[in-house]
């Protein structure tokens, strides 16, 4: 009986080739668009996440500020200053702190010179972990290390642009450059994807710079990463750090401007939240497209039933029960939409596969893909909708009065 029913339907579909093709096309197109949009959305999200991964997504930066709330004798507008003790306190704060460095800027008025060439560069005095916080890529030599700090060595690591300007093609490693009145030995050269400006930077050991430029214990910023901490843990670490500074410097922990804290995960979360909504939007648009296809099938089934009124009348006169007529129409609709849905699925997943292989890793799109869950739910959606699309016309067909139907021309 099952195969017989399919043969009956196959005969009808063959008889109405254009109608069949149109129905299949609309549903296939809907499914194709839905899956493609979902896949592309996922690809864009992957792309952006990849970018963040390069950028130490888990970093927290602490900047100095001015109090805006009077607290325990500290008036509004007091400047909060950092020193080495703050660095030590944050470092020993807890397990969340992974890599940590302080930054001290000796000042913009310092001139850097070598062999008669001189220029002004950004000078940052840092701890060894700074390497991980800024995406610093050492191309020659090494970065600042702990021994440099312990011995307050006069060494420096220079950016690629600094090297090009001061040394040209000559060897820079082991040479001495003059920063202000002091000579530093070049121990490393670095590259930075952050851009040209980052490569016009010179790194010094923080202890050396504090000694040489009379800063004593002063630092300007603290930067640290939170390792594998979750977003919530990272927010907690941010709060802990604020409390730590508030306790030591005597400002209110509610005063968000006494010190300013930038949590990179906030940006990351903003983007992922945005992507969540983009995906919702994409799903709604895609589902709408599928729905349009389903409506088209339903419409086509209504027309099909109207056109076959007489045939249905004949079938009923020959002994077709209402249930058998309903079954005939519903299964026809189901076959149409399932076949079309499968076609759309096949085409879109195929196209995504091709995209995945051919589109190289770039900033906007990476590994466009749909999950098995998406494929399964799209399939179920199409099957469900196909049944529904067929059901109403089928009910109508089953209730056709054979006497009247046989009189239609």
């Amino acid at each position, binding site marked *: *009986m099952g*195969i*017989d029913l399919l*043969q*009956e339907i196959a*005969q*009808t579909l*063959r*008889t109405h080739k254009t109608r069949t093709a149109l129905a299949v096309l609309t549903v296939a197109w809907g499914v194709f668009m839905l899956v493609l949009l979902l896949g592309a959305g996922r690809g864009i999200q992957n792309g952006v996440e990849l970018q963040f991964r390069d950028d130490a997504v888990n970093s927290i930066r602490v900047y100095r500020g001015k109090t805006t709330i009077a607290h325990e004798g500290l008036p509004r507008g007091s400047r909060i200053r950092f020193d080495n003790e703050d660095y030590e306190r944050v470092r020993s704060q807890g397990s969340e702190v992974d890599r940590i460095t302080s930054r001290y800027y000796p000042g913009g008025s310092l001139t850097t010179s070598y062999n008669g060439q001189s220029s002004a560069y950004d000078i940052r005095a840092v701890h060894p972990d700074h390497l991980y916080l800024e995406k610093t890529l050492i191309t020659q030599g090494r970065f600042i290390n702990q021994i440099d700090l312990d011995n307050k060595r006069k060494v420096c690591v220079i950016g690629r642009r600094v090297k090009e300007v001061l040394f040209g093609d000559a060897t820079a490693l082991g040479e001495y450059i003059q920063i202000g009145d002091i000579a530093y030995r070049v121990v490393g050269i670095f590259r930075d994807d952050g851009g040209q400006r980052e490569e016009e930077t010179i790194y010094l050991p923080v202890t050396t710079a504090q000694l040489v430029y009379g800063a004593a214990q002063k630092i300007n910023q603290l930067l640290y990463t939170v390792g594998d901490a979750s977003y919530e843990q990272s927010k907690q670490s941010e709060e802990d750090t604020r409390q730590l500074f508030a306790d030591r410097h005597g400002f209110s922990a509610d005063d968000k401007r006494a010190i300013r804290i930038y949590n990179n995960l906030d940006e990351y979360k903003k983007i992922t939240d945005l992507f969540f909504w983009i995906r919702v939007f994409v799903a709604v648009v895609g589902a709408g497209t599928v729905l349009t296809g389903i409506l088209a099938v339903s419409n086509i089934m209504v027309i099909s039933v109207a056109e076959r009124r*007489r*045939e249905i*009348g*004949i*079938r*009923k*006169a*020959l*002994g*077709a*029960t*209402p*249930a*058998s007529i309903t079954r005939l129409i519903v299964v026809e609709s189901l076959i149409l939409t399932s076949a079309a849905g499968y076609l759309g699925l096949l085409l879109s997943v195929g196209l995504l596969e091709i995209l995945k292989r051919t589109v190289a890793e770039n900033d906007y799109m990476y590994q466009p893909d749909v999950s098995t869950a998406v494929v399964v739910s799209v399939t179920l959606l199409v099957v469900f909708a196909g049944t529904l699309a067929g059901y109403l016309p089928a009910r109508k067909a089953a209730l056709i009065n*054979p*006497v009247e139907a*046989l009189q239609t021309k």
Partner: protein
Amino acid sequence: MGENRVRALDSVSLAIQRGEFVAVQGSSGSGKSTLLNILGILDSADSGSYTLDDTRMDNLSHRQAAQYRNQFIGFVFQTFNLIHHKSAVENVALPLYYQGVTRRKRNAIAMQYLERVGLADRASHKPSELSGGQSQRVAIARALITKPALILADEPTGALDSQTSEQIMQLFKEVNREGRTVLMVTHEEDIAQRTKRVIHMRDGMVISDTASAEPVS
């Protein structure tokens, strides 16, 4: 219809025995089509009862009506009512589809019936490739395939020329001779006279019920 209700059939009392060959005559509006629809379980009477093959046909569900139609009745229509996208043999086999007979088996049976009406060589033709007389013979084969107790024919020769009509009437006679009850509605006097019993209807009532003039061969 509102306030002007028309009685299509009024106080009709008929008994038709197994194996009879009956013609129902009357002008349009006489109620003969309504009678045929009720006998065919395509319609039901507002009151009264109908017994077919010792089975009461009143208050049937759609499903039961469909099953009885399939089991007890074979229809032949003026306009043949073949399904245009099916071949002759598939059209003949269709009633067996609703009995759950497998495709191979019902097509084999259908071939036997096509052979009976002399159209075995047209088995794979679509209705559009058949003449009127051939189409009606296919329809008769379709009506016979379930071995029904009653063949109902609605103006079976109405769309055919006289020579073809003659062939079709011969076929009905043969069917009747095998013991099947045949009831046909016709407005053609000469066709009616070829049956054994003629019932005249007017305004929904039976006005005469006589044995046919023509001697039964």
